[in-house]
């Protein structure tokens, strides 16, 4: 088993009586891009704020790099870079001065500023006051600030929020390059599955404060069970014929559906239809999209409560 960078146990945060984060057991392995996925208000930001020591858990424990955050908070934070919600910056200062204000606190060499500026491609704009930056540039400055201390773990909360498609693409490429080029573990939150799908290796899905799925992205995709859709001439008669021949199928809107059928099973059904003189117009595979799984997972949970 690979090393756990983040491990929370029963992590809970209450605001008044409501549990915004409810017994969350989060496990992030070294070198992974952990996609933290959940609809608006699920508790992503609240969880992340607890990981960064910005908020105190009401219950439960947080261990990062094997250390207890209650005991060794500063030692942990030394290895963590973060960007929470919208970027923080000092508008009256230039990009370089912004980084310098953080650099003196981290005690890293001055040359590191040039390095992070070039990673996020802000070298040319380094001498301009940040208040004149576009949102994308501010977001990139936020990433640069997060990278300043050579972190081993990067925690990014909705880093593509508010960016245009090219900004999103750029941010995604930047995030994906980190573990490869710098060996950094990343936690990135989003409410968009497509986004997590495009960068994450591990996924944690949270809704209403509870983790309802946590595994590799492949495992999530496997849940995307496929079904075979048949379009035939006399659909009702075909369905009945199949049933009398021992094949259970679903009849939905003038189509016949075969769920989770093996190749042989599908072939047997098709053969049976042909033998009974039905005209088969189409045999199509229908894959459930991740989006549908996500909605199914989060919807189910919602139905239970």
């Amino acid at each position: 088993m690979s090393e756990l960078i983040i491990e929370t146990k029963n992590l809970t945060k209450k605001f008044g009586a409501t549990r915004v984060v409810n017994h969350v057991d989060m496990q992030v392995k070294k070198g992974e891009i952990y996609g933290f996925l959940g609809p608006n208000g699920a508790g992503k930001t609240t969880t992340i704020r607890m990981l960064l020591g910005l908020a105190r858990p009401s219950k439960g424990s947080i261990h990062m790099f094997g250390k207890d955050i209650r005991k060794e908070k500063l030692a942990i934070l030394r290895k963590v870079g973060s960007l929470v919600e919208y970027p923080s910056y000092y508008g009256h200062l230039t990009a370089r001065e912004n980084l310098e204000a953080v650099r003196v606190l981290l005690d890293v060499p001055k040359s590191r500023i040039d390095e992070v500026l070039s990673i996020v491609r802000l070298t040319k704009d380094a001498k301009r006051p940040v208040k004149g930056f576009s949102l994308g540039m501010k977001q990139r400055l936020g990433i640069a600030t997060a990278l300043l201390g050579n972190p081993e773990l990067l925690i990014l909360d909705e880093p593509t929020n508010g960016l245009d498609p090219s900004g999103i693409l750029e941010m995604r490429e930047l995030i994906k390059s980190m573990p490869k080029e710098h060996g950094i573990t990343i936690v990135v939150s989003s409410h968009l599955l497509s986004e997590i799908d495009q960068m994450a290796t591990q996924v944690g899905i949270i809704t209403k404060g509870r983790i309802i799925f946590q595994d590799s992205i492949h495992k999530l995709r496997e849940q995307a069970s496929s079904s075979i859709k048949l379009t035939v001439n006399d659909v009702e008669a075909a369905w009945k014929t199949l049933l009398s021949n021992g094949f259970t199928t679903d009849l939905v809107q003038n189509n016949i559906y075969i769920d989770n059928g093996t190749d042989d099973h599908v072939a047997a059904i098709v053969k049976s239809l042909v033998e009974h003189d039905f005209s088969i117009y189409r045999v199509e595979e229908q894959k459930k999209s991740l989006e549908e799984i996500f909605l199914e997972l989060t919807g189910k949970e919602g139905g239970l409560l």
Partner: protein
Amino acid sequence: MIRVMLSEFIKIKRKLILFLIILGPLGVIGLQAANFGLRYDWLTSQYKEDLWRGLIGEVTMLSVPTILIGLTILTSMIANIEHQTNAWKQLVALPVSKMKIFAGKALLSFILLFVSCLLLFFGTIILGLSLRFGTAIPLFYLLKMCFFPFLAAMPFLALQTWLAISMKNQAIPLTTGILGTIVSLYGTGFPDWMPLKWPWLVNEWDEPVYSVLFGVATGLVLYLLSLIDFSRRDVK
């Protein structure tokens, strides 16, 4: 802690804060220059016993409310640097203890106000010399009158720092600061236990040092309480 202060000084670059630090003492000295310029004969006859002490007394009348309003604006501006883009979350997530972050903000206000008082000290000397009050300057008394009101105002510095940092909406700390300043104008008539009286350095024992001691002690207690409050509070 030195790193924290370095960072704080980088952050006030190009802010009006530095201008304010000069404006305060400059305003007090400027108004007194006008005061003495317009009523030179009357004031010099009033203070003919000791012209320097007379001038210093007049300066103090203005400097006390200026210190109070100045620290109100200053603490608010310093806190606002972080409030504007909610940079607290970035700052607190750095490997620096919350206590040090709060202490850095309070110390920055203290240092800047100290510089203001120092400027007032030199400004008064320049004004007295240009009014031809002679070179027998009561330096120790002047030093006392420039720095004692500031030290006696420590409870307000602690209170305003705490208010300005813990609330995003600066209307509240600004209001309490302005009200405090107005009330303090009548401070000399208050009972001795009233903190708003202390910056005036008057008390029943006639010992300005007592006012300073009360101020510094109460200020320290308030500062420690705010420090604990800040380090426990969740950052938005």
